[in-house]
């Protein structure tokens, strides 16, 4: 009886203890800016712009908007606005700008750097009610949507028309297209379809003073003046609120294969990638790597047998002994052609012992299952209470060294153990989009605490700087990395950015305390 009791108290409070700490209390050095405070008059004014159900003031209903996906950042907003039209967004911002009321634009709230939630009492402007598909041109593949359309819904819609959204990521069921553009999300198929800087053709954005910038007319080629839309791609709500997106979508591949491979060391992973590029060429659409510990984490939440496990193990989740795994996807228009290429490639890598084990999906169900072992890592990383996430670009050969160094450091400081529940860190794992030189380092923790944070930062950033990488490959700066941009950008660059921000948002009401 006693044992049972101690066990349950160990598990539960760890997750809860820290999820209730306000961001403002966790970071006492950050002071609330000189912004207006919401009063009844303000609420009255917003009630004139919006209908009652577009205004949330009940503190219970607001909780979800105040807290980020990782439950790491918690704000204290008292007001959420859910405009339905671009004009409503414009009127809201115009008023906020006059009253100097700070705002946070919020999409699906899946951002991983604390950018989508308030730090103090900023008004949350949620795009959730702007969720219409505006138009789709069957011949050009140009899709125009409201910013609040869920990525997966946009992709399902395109799928019915034979097209595909040029972006895919683990959070597709929750994140919004507008949020994707605001964060310049990279995702799983960047290797094939390139970045949003290329595929976004036009945007509709409301600036801080309520001005509506519109370039939704969408020409593929248009060399007249500065390409302003690029400013907003990856601006994380700091320059304006994106309300509409026009994006060029490629034809949906007719044949998709997924292979899942086991490898003996990191060097083989890079070799395998080289070979995949040269042998699979244009049909290679994803090349993701995962270390063994990331698979062990995933096994504990997926609770199914690992694809490369052959023996019938009952119950307990286990993963074979390969230090690295690769998920490789091909997409093409001709199945026979793709199959022959993939088979030849797999034979080569097996024969040359670059790959020691592997499997290929035989049907759609298996294909989806294989992807869960990659996409499930994000969620699995926070099953013990929380996760410190680093999303970095590094040269391929030194990429995994970062994970090794961090593991070593956490062990030396005696902060990490998979067994001892008293240690704050469970495990550090590495995985990511090798194809784009992008590593995800997830430090799965039982609690968020200063000691762990000090062990990791600036250690991780210094490592990246010394290896000429970027401290944020795709998740952005948000709140978490605001102070670390200097590790990746020069002073001149930072000053130019600050000038832009000052020019377009002189009162600094858009997503304060973040980005830059």
């Amino acid at each position, binding site marked *: 009886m006693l044992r049972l009791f101690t066990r349950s108290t160990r598990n539960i409070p760890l997750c809860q203890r820290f999820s209730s700490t306000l961001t403002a209390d966790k970071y006492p050095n950050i002071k609330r800016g000189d912004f207006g405070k919401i009063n009844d008059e303000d609420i009255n004014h917003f009630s004139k712009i919006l209908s009652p159900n577009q205004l949330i003031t009940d503190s219970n209903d607001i909780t979800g908007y105040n807290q980020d996906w990782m439950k790491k950042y918690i704000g204290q907003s008292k007001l959420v606005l859910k405009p339905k039209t671009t004009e409503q967004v414009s009127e809201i911002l115009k008023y906020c700008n006059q009253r100097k009321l700070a705002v946070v634009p919020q999409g699906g709230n899946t951002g991983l750097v604390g950018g989508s939630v308030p730090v103090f009492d900023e008004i949350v402007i949620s795009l959730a009610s702007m969720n219409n598909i505006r138009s789709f041109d069957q011949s050009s593949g140009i899709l125009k949507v409201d910013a609040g359309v869920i990525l997966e819904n946009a992709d399902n819609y395109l799928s019915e028309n034979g097209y595909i959204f040029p972006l895919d990521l683990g959070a597709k069921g929750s994140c919004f297209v507008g949020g994707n553009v605001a964060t310049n999300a990279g995702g799983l198929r960047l290797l094939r379809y390139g970045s949003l800087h290329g595929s976004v053709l036009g945007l509709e954005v409301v600036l801080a003073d309520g001005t509506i910038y519109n370039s939704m007319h969408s020409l593929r080629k248009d060399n007249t003046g500065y390409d302003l839309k690029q400013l907003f791609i990856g601006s994380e709500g700091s320059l304006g609120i994106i309300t509409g997106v026009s994006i060029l979508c490629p034809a949906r591949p*007719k*044949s*998709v294969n997924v292979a*899942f*491979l086991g490898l003996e060391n990191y060097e083989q992973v890079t070799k395998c990638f080289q070979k995949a590029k040269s042998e699979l060429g244009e049909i290679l659409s994803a090349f993701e790597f995962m270390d063994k510990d990331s698979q062990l984490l995933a096994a504990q939440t997926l609770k199914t*047998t690992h*694809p*490369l496990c*052959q023996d019938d193990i009952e119950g307990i989740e286990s993963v074979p002994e390969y230090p690295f795994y690769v998920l490789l996807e091909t997409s093409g228009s001709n*199945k026979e052609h793709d199959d022959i290429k993939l*088979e030849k490639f*797999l*034979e080569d890598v*097996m024969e040359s012992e670059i*790959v020691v*084990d*592997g*499997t*290929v*999906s*035989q*049907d*759609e*169900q*298996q294909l*989806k299952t*294989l992807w869960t072992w990659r996409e499930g890592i994000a969620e699995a990383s926070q099953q013990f209470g929380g996760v410190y996430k680093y999303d970095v670009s590094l040269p391929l050969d030194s990429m995994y060294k970062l994970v090794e160094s961090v593991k070593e450091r956490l062990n030396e400081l005696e902060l990490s153990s998979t067994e001892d529940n008293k240690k704050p860190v469970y495990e550090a794992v590495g995985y990511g989009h090798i194809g784009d030189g992008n590593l995800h380092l997830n430090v799965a923790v039982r609690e968020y605490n200063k000691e762990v944070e000090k062990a990791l930062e600036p250690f991780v950033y210094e490592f990246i700087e010394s290896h000429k990488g970027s401290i944020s490959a795709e998740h952005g700066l948000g709140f978490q990395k605001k102070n670390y941009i200097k590790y990746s950008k020069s002073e001149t660059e930072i000053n130019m950015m600050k000038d832009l921000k000052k020019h377009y948002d002189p009162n600094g009401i858009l997503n304060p305390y973040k980005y830059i």
Partner: protein
Amino acid sequence: MSSKIKILVPVKRVIDAALKPRINKTKTGIESQGVKFSINPFDDIAVEEACKIRKNNKGLVESIHAVTIGSTKAKEVLRTALARGADTSTLIEINEDKQIEPLAVSKILKKIVEKEGSNFVILGKQAIDDDSNQVGQMLAGLLGWSQATNAAKIIIENDNLIKVEREIDGGVEVIEAPLPIVITTDLRLNEPKFIKLPMMMKAKKKPLGVLKPEDLNVEINDRLETISLDVPPTRKAGVMVKNVDELISKLKELEKQA
């Protein structure tokens, strides 16, 4: 144990189970252009079970032969079966647009059983494209063998007796029969594993013979004619009512409309 088991596993290439089939423009069949095909999931379970029986009963199974009826594209599903562990395979080649009815399928399979000397046939309880659920039963009838349909568990008893568990309303039915036997598989029987690369490569070297129905002296006669295919009407969305009064007034409204 006296006689060894020679297993035959018939498999079918069907539109992938995870996809939503679409009716073609002429409403005569299902759109197959640019659509992914895979092995019928129940047949995949049958192949997996055959391999499991071999693994769990050392020395008992002499051979596993996979057979499919289809166009040359159906070789794909034979490769899957071979990679899973079948030893040899046969494609009975027919024209790609040809739909072949359960009775004709059963007649062809009977010939293959005789040709291969099989005494144990295991196949899906139905193919998910036409959902006929007839071939196993018809084949057992034509052969005059025992049949056990919708198997959820198969146990090979020592005395060459096969014990099959079937899930029925409110419980499990256990049936026993000696060889030869036809067994059809239910979803519960097993969960096919991922196939490892070395097995896939080995499969490429395993025998894959091709025959025509004529070679087996089977005539394919259609007994059914498809007049037209249509999707079922979409159901109207329901309405939520707050209380009984609202329910009654809604019902009255509907009555007026009717």
